């Protein structure tokens, strides 16, 4: 009876402490639990794998720094593939906190960048914070040259591959890494007009993004950190995603166990209280 009651009404701090330990211990000492690759990640990989030197990709880091922590594996793995395929990359951000992220990502893939002679200005440009709201996204889709003049470092974008961009139709692909800040605007002003889009979103957003995959606005959807880890596995470059998967898996096991315990407690005490009333 008392055990069932405690199952039904345990201190929530115990859950926090357990979760803290279950996440931290595997990160401090990884176990290497196996993972499988989902079909959605394979589709995503096929899209970025098909890119070539003539392709122009608008990479939008549509996230705050906290969100970046969840999807960094997807960002790093995707941008590594784009560098390997020599696709031209323009990196824009839609949140002030994200302005430091492009440099972190390029530092993480420095070896690949050096190996492929991928150079700033010629192969990639970092624009910084250029998509603060829907109006900015709409203007860039309509008249790129009228809105984008300088890169993040204050240098003119004239003379770079961005000279080829005039409106939404000149992009080969929009690659959006999102916590939902401007993803709707990118859909409205690029995706809906016909620019191919792929998205890596945080876990909370997956259910809201699925319909855009079904309607064909997105070509592929990479799901949260889990998708990033699968992409790392597919590309053969283990990184932050794969090392986090132990904690991720154990965290989910813990949730399942807690749901079972909570339900046993709930139904057990319900049954007991019914008997007492009778």
């Amino acid at each position, binding site marked *: 009876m008392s055990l069932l009651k405690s199952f039904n009404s345990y201190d929530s701090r115990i859950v926090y402490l357990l979760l803290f330990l279950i996440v931290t211990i595997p990160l401090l000492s990884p176990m290497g639990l196996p993972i499988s690759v989902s079909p959605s990640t394979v589709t995503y990989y096929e899209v970025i794998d098909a890119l070539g030197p003539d392709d122009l990709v608008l990479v939008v880091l549509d996230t705050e720094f906290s969100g970046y922590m969840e999807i960094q594996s997807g960002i790093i793995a995707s941008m590594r593939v784009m560098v390997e395929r020599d696709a031209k990359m323009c990196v824009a951000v839609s949140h002030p906190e994200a302005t430091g992220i492009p440099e972190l990502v390029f530092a993480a893939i420095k070896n690949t960048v050096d190996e492929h002679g991928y150079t700033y200005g010629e192969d990639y440009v970092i624009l910084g914070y250029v998509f603060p709201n829907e109006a900015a996204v709409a203007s860039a889709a309509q008249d790129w040259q009228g809105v984008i003049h300088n890169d993040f470092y204050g240098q003119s974008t004239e003379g770079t591959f961005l000279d080829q961009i005039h409106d939404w139709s000149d992009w080969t692909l929009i690659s959006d890494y999102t916590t939902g800040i401007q993803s709707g605007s990118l859909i409205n002003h690029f995706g809906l007009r016909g620019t191919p889009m792929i998205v890596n979103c945080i876990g909370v957003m997956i259910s809201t993004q699925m319909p855009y995959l079904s309607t064909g606005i997105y070509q592929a959807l990479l799901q949260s950190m*889990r998708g990033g880890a699968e992409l790392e596995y597919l590309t053969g470059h283990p990184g932050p995603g794969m090392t986090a998967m132990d904690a991720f898996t154990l*965290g989910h096991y813990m949730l399942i166990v807690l749901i079972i315990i909570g339900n046993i407690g709930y139904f057990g005490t319900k049954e007991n209280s019914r008997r007492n009333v009778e």
Partner: protein
Amino acid sequence: MTDPVELSIMVVGCFLSMCMFSTLYGKSSPLYSLAEESYIGFATGLTIVMNLMYIYNTGVVGIQGGDWILIFGFILGIATLLRINPKYSYFSRLPIAITLGAQLGLSLRTQIYTGFIDQIKASIVPLFEGSAKTLIYNWTTFICVIFMLSFFLYTIEIKGPIKLSAKIGEYLMYASFGAIFAQTFMGRLGLFVGSIQNFTVPPWKKPILIACMAIVLVALIALDKLNLLEKLTPEE
């Protein structure tokens, strides 16, 4: 040899993150307040600087390039700031009205497609062509849409087969809410794992993480035992 700048960023970041997590202790704490106020201060400062850079890069550079119409943007921006002066605050209504109108106009035009027409189109799927897997997927979509729509029939009395259909629709929705809950948990866990992972890779960060966790936990328990937690927490 670790870069001293990176080391100090790591120590401060890790300590403040652990202070943020101190909210899980269930009592107000000065450590949480320290982290919270620091974050708000840093984030506000960064936002102001980045927005000024944005105004310079898209506005000032544009005007220098001969795009004179952007001057209206500056005038409207200054008019917005007049809100702080009660005498001239009415000027701010104009830019706010323009902004709201433009925003609504931009999103309404497209929301009809992305949020409505395209969603309906995507649920109209071929039921007799494609591979076995596609057929299963399409039939599931078709049946689930019918059952769930029947749950939302409000203008007729729900009885007989429609009642059964509405009940099945209700349970299908519970199943989808369960999936959404699981994805939400995955998302929150992902944010947590990502932030902790930031303090464990590369390995030289691990002792700092453990030290910060221990310091914050010991400080919390000690302050609680001495009844100082609420006393030292600044009032909102």
